[in-house]
Structure formats: structure tokens, C-alpha cells
């Protein structure tokens, strides 16, 4: 794919990723966030954090399907940063609308409530990922260390899913779909590793 097409695609993808945020803003101004607007904002930002994490984690397995999909990697950073963006909005709903900026109450919550501890863990991972998302960071850290650090994306996604499971009531299974998607994305990596190992062994034997 040519660079020009990629640039155009990015120009389209960027505003598209902002649509959920735009819808929230629009509904906020027109007072159409529903009977429980705080819950609507919280759930929407939470869901989109998970969705963007899952989409960014799907880049690698999808790209491996064909050499013609290599260009997808050029979108991964943007998608990951949008996960951080929605995750930060999600965090802000808690900081503002639930805790009213009461620092002591928030620290107590983090210590006492496992689902909040898990949510904060996930967001902290996203913060580290976002902070080291520049080309300068890769150069500074070195490719290997940077890659290892950026495996935190898995921690963030798993923490996000656990955060969701710990919040729903017993007997409710609504998080199963995102859980299944994450499981497939992680298993695809394991399958690829096994395949690669076998291929390398074959190459070694042939040599």
C-alpha cells in the first residue's frame, strides 16, 4: 500500500475513532444521555477503552494472516492511544462524577475495592504505554526493551476484563463476549509462536 493511501486512511480513521466521544458530547449538550447519564458516560467510555484495546491487539494476529496486510501495523499506535484516551475519560468520570475530586475517598477506594484497584492497574499500564509511544522512546529504550515494556498492553486488556467481571452482579454474564475476543487474540499469538518454533526447527534441520 502506498504511503499516500495510508495517510488518507489515517485522516479518515482518526475522526472515526472520535465518533463515540462526539456522540457523548452531543448527547450531553442535548440532554439525551438517558435516565442515568452518569452511568451512560461511564459505560460508554469503559466499553470503548476495551474495544480500542482489543482492536489494537488484533493488529498483530490479523497482519500475520497475509504479507499484504503488513501496513496495518501503522495504525496500531493510534488505536492504542485512543484506548488511553477513552480510558482516561473513564477514569475522569470516577474522579469527577463519582468521587467529586475527593482524593482521600479515591485512595480509600483504590485500596479497598478490588474492581477499582484492577481498573487503576489497567489505566496505569495504558499511561506507561502512551508515555512511551513516541519514536524517540523506542530509540531511547532500545527496540528489545521497548517491545518488552509494550507487552503491558496484554496486562491492560486482562486487567480491564477482570475489572468488568468484578463489577457485574453474580449470575450476570455480559462480559463474556469481550472476554472471548481477548482469549482468541491471545491464543492466536500462542498458535503463531508454536508454528514459528516448528518452522525454525525445520529450517535448522534443513541447514
Amino acid at each position: 500500500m502506498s504511503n499516500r493511501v495510508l495517510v488518507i486512511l489515517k485522516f479518515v480513521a482518526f475522526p472515526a475513532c472520535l465518533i463515540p466521544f462526539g456522540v457523548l458530547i452531543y448527547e450531553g449538550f442535548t440532554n439525551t444521555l438517558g435516565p442515568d447519564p452518569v452511568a451512560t458516560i461511564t459505560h460508554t467510555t469503559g466499553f470503548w477503552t476495551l474495544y480500542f484495546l482489543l482492536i489494537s491487539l488484533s493488529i498483530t494476529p490479523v497482519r500475520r494472516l497475509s504479507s499484504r496486510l503488513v501496513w496495518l501495523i501503522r495504525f496500531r499506535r493510534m488505536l492504542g492511544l485512543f484506548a488511553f484516551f477513552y480510558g482516561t475519560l473513564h477514569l475522569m468520570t470516577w474522579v469527577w462524577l463519582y468521587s467529586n475530586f475527593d482524593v482521600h475517598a479515591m485512595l480509600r477506594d483504590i485500596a479497598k475495592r478490588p474492581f477499582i484497584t484492577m481498573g487503576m492497574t489497567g489505566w496505569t499500564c495504558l499511561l506507561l504505554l502512551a508515555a512511551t509511544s513516541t519514536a524517540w522512546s523506542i530509540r531511547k529504550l532500545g527496540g528489545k526493551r521497548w517491545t518488552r515494556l509494550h507487552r503491558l498492553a496484554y496486562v491492560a486488556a486482562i486487567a480491564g476484563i477482570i475489572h468488568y467481571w468484578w463489577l457485574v452482579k453474580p449470575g450476570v454474564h455480559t462480559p463474556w463476549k469481550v472476554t472471548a475476543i481477548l482469549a482468541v487474540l491471545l491464543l492466536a499469538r500462542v498458535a503463531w509462536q508454536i508454528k514459528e518454533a516448528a518452522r525454525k526447527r525445520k529450517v535448522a534441520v534443513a541447514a
Partner: protein
Amino acid sequence: MLIRKPSDISSSQITSKSDYMNRRKFMAGAAAVGAAALGADLLKNVASPREAVHATTKLTTVPSQYSTKGVTPTSFEDITTYNNFYEFGTGKSDPSHNAWRLKTNPWTVKVDGEVKSKKEFDIDALMKIHPLEDRIYRHRCVEAWSMVIPWVGYSLSEFIKQCEPLSSAKYVQFLSIDNPSEEPGIFQVNLDWPYSEGLRMDEAMHPLTLFTFGLYGQTLPNQDGAPVRIVLPWKYGYKSAKSLVHIRFVKHQPRTTWNEASPSMYGFYSNVNPDVDTVPWSQKYERVIGAPFWKARQPTVLFNGYGDQVADLYKGMNLRTNY
């Protein structure tokens, strides 16, 4: 306090119960196969969801001394589209879309257990036991949101007198309808159906405990627990069992659905208490339904503000351990 009806809903917009029932019959009859009927009904709901929501009949009511003063009722729209009624799905708007499937006429409530003799009450007879009162109550959900609802009903104690319980009756158990063909949510949620709730006898006899048939001066919409339910304003919403078919007077504390699902989170008493949070989230504040998002946060009050009336029921009890 008089019941204020929201000005945007005129009575002409409200579909009468018989029209509503007949519409469904007509729909079912017109369709060649059941699946087609289902599809058409769903389409109809998408086209005019209000029709499904407003399947109610006007009731004759009298004022009540037990009505909460100085509060503004939540809109009819919010009360009837933001519901937790897991038999119809776990989404807040699921009950308003699915609850039309429940047939509430004819309806009987069975009474047995520690009573002089077993009885069955027809819904029309139940509504005539005592004059129907307008009672505005605050409603606090365990999920930390709250509403103000103008219910219609009479004190459950009036009904209990008719049941003639024996002195051996220490608790009352309420069982909701369990009919998966009318309640699609039953298969989606891993709870032990039928929905069961219970009260100690003195709680059940308390005048605030409302045997409820309507809201906003009309019969209950299905998604709010038609045709008859319990309302306990000082307890979390899930204690107020909906669409009752069976009431039992028992010697021992009965099983309650959420307590069975997670005993550490949901106790038998479930009194509203901002200082005790057994669920993962805090109970200190509540989100007022219908308020803009920057003004929705409100402190939660012990017994949901009904402490003057009900605190005596729990005198000497540790509210932290008896959650």
C-alpha cells in the same frame, strides 16, 4: 400530596389494557407462524415503544398519610424505561421492550404455609380489599441510583389480615412469576428462579410496606411488576419483589434470590445504609435518575430517609452484620 401527572402524556395517548391485550391477540392471529408474530411484534415495538410502555388503566385513588412529602416524582418515562427486572433481560431498557409478553389477566395469587386455610385471590378481588392510596416513596437501587415514585396500593398488613396467618408464621415469602415463555431473561441470567424475597413478620406488617398495584394513578406497567408487587422504600429495590403469584407464611427465614447468588454481597435485610457497602461499589452516594450528569450525585441516607418510621424494627440489631 396530589399526584402530578407529567404534562406531556395525555390520557388519550394511553392505550387501554383491553386494547393492548387485543392488539397482541390480533397480531398473533394474523401471523402465519409464531416466529413471524414475534418478528412483527418486535418491529411494532421499535416503531412505537411508548405503546408497550403505557399499557395501563386509570385507577381510583385516595390520598395517604404515609406518602413522602416535599419530593418531586421522577418522570413516568424514566420510571417505565429504566428498570431492573432480570426476568426480562439485564439491560435497563430490556424490561420495557420485553415485558409486554407477560399476561397479567387473568391473574391469581396463591397464599399458603402457616395460615388458617390456603387461599387464592383473584387480582380484581385483591384490588378491592382496601381503598387504593397514592403513596410517593423514594426508591433506592443497590446499584446506587434513586428515583421518587408515586405508587398506588395499600399497606400489605391489610392483605395479611385477610390471609389469617397463624402465630407460628414468623416470616413472609414472596414468589414472582416464573414462566420462561413469557420472560425471555430467565435463560440469560444464572439465578435460581422463581425470584424469591422475604420479610420478617413485623417488617411485613409495617404500614410503609406497600402492596402495590399501580403508579402515577394507573395500573402498573408490566416492566414495573404488574399486576401486583411489594414496595419497601427503606430497603434496596431488589427486596421489593414484582409480579407476585405466591405468598407463603413460614416459620423460618425464607430463601431470597440475591442472597443465594452472593450471601456476602446481599443480606436478608438489605436496608439502605450508606455506611455498609457489601457490594463492590460504594453506597455513600446515589445518582438521581433524570438529573443532569453534573447534578446527579446525592448523599444516601440511612433507611433511605425512613428511619423515623422503621428504625425501631431493628433496635438492638447490629446493622453491619445484619446487612
